[in-house]
């Protein structure tokens, strides 16, 4: 064990031309905890995600990720694929990004690319069908099978991902991210478009990922029932700055949070206030 914080964001800023999307944002995400990042639409949540996962290079600030072994990686210095490969941060997308023409199983195999590349001796051992490669491939299929079972998609393993219903695609995307064996899992609105039953199942899945895999989770979510039920810590953003943070309970009662939601969108504010009751 090396501290209770896995991700430490300090003074993060992101500007596009003259627009300041994120301004001097600081927060910590706990190890083996579920941290939720909430806020009205346009608050800059996805921009924060894109900075953490290397799709944007922040204009300023630092994002430090500390692994279990105590090694700290500055994410703002890594870019795109290295974040997932070296820092072991996995993510899902607001608008699902599966490989629609590949089967569910293939999607999960692609997620294990880096491990499999090493096992296939950068393709050469695989090309001659070396036994070490064969066993590695069998293990990879087993891992994929495990995750398909956990998200309840085992019977759809050989169907094209693009043919799955929406809710299944959301779960498959989480399974795919988990197949990279991440230390930190970033979920961008995982409950969007799910019905109440599916949302409940999602909450259960995320809790089990935290307890069984010990993966820390950072999520953006609008569905307050999910946020209130599973989060250990909530960070509230509005107009690119942090306006509150704390336990779900304390955040919900914070007048600044209520004002932010009321000012932005009445329905969302009501959702915040009514949820969890």
């Amino acid at each position, binding site marked *: 064990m090396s501290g209770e914080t896995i991700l430490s964001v300090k003074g993060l800023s992101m500007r596009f031309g003259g627009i300041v999307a994120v301004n001097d944002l600081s927060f910590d995400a706990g190890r083996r905890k579920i941290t939720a990042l909430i806020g009205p639409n346009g608050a800059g949540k996805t921009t924060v995600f894109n900075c953490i996962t290397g799709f944007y290079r922040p204009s300023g600030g630092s994002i430090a990720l500390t692994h279990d072994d105590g090694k700290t990686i500055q994410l703002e210095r890594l870019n795109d694929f290295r974040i997932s490969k070296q820092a072991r941060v996995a993510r899902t997308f607001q608008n699902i990004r599966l490989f629609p023409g590949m089967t569910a199983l*293939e999607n999960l195999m*692609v997620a294990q690319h880096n491990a499999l590349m090493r096992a296939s001796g950068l393709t050469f051992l695989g090309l001659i069908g070396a036994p070490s490669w064969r066993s590695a491939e069998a293990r990879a299929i087993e891992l994929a099978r495990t995750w398909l079972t956990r998200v309840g998609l085992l019977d759809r393993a050989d169907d094209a991902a693009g043919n799955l219903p929406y809710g299944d695609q959301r779960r498959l995307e989480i399974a795919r991210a988990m197949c990279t064996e991440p230390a930190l899992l970033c979920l961008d609105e995982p409950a969007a478009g799910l019905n109440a039953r599916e949302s409940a199942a999602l909450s259960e899945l995320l809790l089990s990922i935290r307890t069984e895999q010990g993966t820390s989770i950072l999520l953006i979510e609008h569905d307050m029932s999910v946020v209130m039920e599973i989060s250990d810590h909530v960070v509230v953003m509005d107009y690119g700055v942090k306006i509150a943070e704390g336990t779900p309970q304390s955040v919900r009662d914070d007048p600044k949070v209520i004002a932010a939601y009321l000012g932005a969108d009445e329905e969302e504010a009501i959702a915040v206030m009514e949820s969890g009751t």
Partner: protein
Amino acid sequence: MTTSALEKKPASRASGAAFILKKATISALVALVLFSLMIGVRTEAGPQGGLIYWTRFGDLAAIVAAVFGGSIVIELLRQWWGPADKVRVVPPAVQNALSLAGRLIAPALLIFTFLVPVIFYDQRYILDLAILVLTYVMLGWGLNVVVGLAGLLDLGYVAFYAVGAYSYALLATNFGLSFWVCLPLAGILAAFWGVLLGFPVLRLRGDYLAIVTLAFGEIIRLVIINWQSLTGGPNGISGIPRPTLFGIPLSPGEDGLAARLGIEFSPTHRIVFLFYLILAMALLTNWVTIRLRRLPIGRAWEALREDEVACRALGINTTTTKLTAFATGAMFGGFAGAFFATRQGFISPESFTFQESALVLAIVVLGGMGSQLGVALAALAMIGGFELFRGLDQYRMLVFGMAMVLLMIWRPRGLIGHRAPTVYLERNQAISSDLVKEGHG
């Protein structure tokens, strides 16, 4: 299709003959304007150097009449066939027969190919044609890695074919290296050039990548034409050594293969040898590609075609992944080029024009992106069709261009419209290519 077009459909049914005639008349009028000057008047440089012209109103009238008649026929066919998006019910018996045929066609084709030199031993023309088809099958399979699997649109593939051909020709004529030494070298050099080009340009969007690769192909050709001291310029390189059967020449001399085996020499021996050589090379390409698809690198290629952003989020280094696809395709192109050089004995820049790239790309797209069998069938159809029109001489490229347009309209997804998964738990079921993405851009 927009709403206005949909609304026109029922109306056209109702008005019948009058509508068809009206449409045909409009087509004929358009044709009349289009062709009035281009066909109605023929220009030519006269004997004194000035331009002279003469009229060909007869030809013009004939073509306009043909357009009129043709559009009536097309319209009738369209009405008979019904709306294009109507779902056609295929009886189960026919479906089963079709799927059986689908499974049998690959092995049947392979067996037939092996027997071609036996069946057509005396027909030099057919053997030559078969070698040509197999060369394009190999090129198509090579480009399929780049375009079909990785979804990178490459319009300059012929550059790597040229690099392979010139590598072999120069190494063999200058240093006397044998074909079997040069073959891997040609592949490696082509792959090297693939990496060299690919490294800076592979992050470009689909269409931009296409135009850059096209420019690269042209640069290579122009350099070959202008670097006369090395490449012989437009005159090319002749006297390229023929391949040997691992050191034994296929020549009529004392140490030739025929003399050693104690059989009578025949020039056909060499043709048959070349046939099996290219067949082996093509099958090797096929085998490697099929293997690669089931390895992480091949799966990453296909994932890249589907969604590049998701690949990056999964820790896949998209640049090296694209480079390996590019280099692998280039290497196969280089092998094919070396074979081309040794078969022809003579190469010149004329063989490496943009039209070759377009032809190979057309084979890949017509075959159905990513499908090995489709590519083989498309190569057979394209090159075979091309030969059928050999008699048409200068009309050949015209017909080829029209065929490309019509084939794309007929089957934009190619002949084989599904992809086979690379790994499965229970059921190995094909995926309709409607779901398969065609690359980023």
